[in-house]
């Protein structure tokens, strides 16, 4: 038995193999998640605001942005 086999056996003995199934029906949670409106994160809102301000200050930047889209 190599050192790696010993380590493996130790890990497996401490974290026994599981054959579990979810304790509850998860489908309603999936449906709720699918039907929930998409929320914008503060980072998305901040980025959109920065781009909007930048375009107001430098309107010629719209071509640069269009190039990257």
């Amino acid at each position, binding site marked *: 038995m190599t*050192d*790696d086999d*010993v*380590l*493996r056996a*130790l*890990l*497996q*003995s*401490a*974290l*026994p*193999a*599981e*054959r*579990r*199934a*979810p*304790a*509850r029906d*998860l*489908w309603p*949670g*999936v449906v709720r*998640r*699918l039907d929930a409106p998409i929320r914008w994160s503060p980072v998305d809102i901040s980025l959109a605001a920065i781009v909007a301000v930048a375009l107001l200050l430098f309107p010629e930047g719209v071509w640069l942005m269009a190039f990257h889209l």
Partner: protein
Amino acid sequence: MAIEPEADLLGRFVQGDREAFETLFRQFEAEVFRWIFWIVRDEGTAEDAVVDAFWRAYRGRARFDPSRSFGAWMRRIATNSARDHLRKARRAEAWAHDPDALPGPAAPDPGLRDAIAGAFRTLPPKLHVVAMLALVEGRPHAEIAEALGVPVGTVKSRVFRATRALRAELDRAGIRP
């Protein structure tokens, strides 16, 4: 592994048919849960990650090629979801101080289990994932590589690094496997 669904069902899923999606969910739910559980080792976290994984699958259904394996595609999404939940749990230190966070039959030595849980916490999530799947669950490297979307060589290298890191951590805790 669940039997691959029929092409017609997969086609309807890609079109956005909710009934087809529910059929796929029922067919793959247990397998996805088990895969995620192997990584996160916490029932509640695994359930959240399953919901998240299927949500991601539905949102990204247009990118699924019905001629490919749905199970393999789902496993990749599940792995990403599990890894993200692991990161979140790390940030919240959800299982850092929770003795019940590694559920299942009690280990022969609770001190050993805590030491191993502590050693796993020190691993970066990408090493944690391969260590759980390869070292603890004994999954084949090729299967892990497919689920992570990386070459088998990368998995081998991560297993090697994870083994070295775990050994060092256990050594620090006074356990010499």
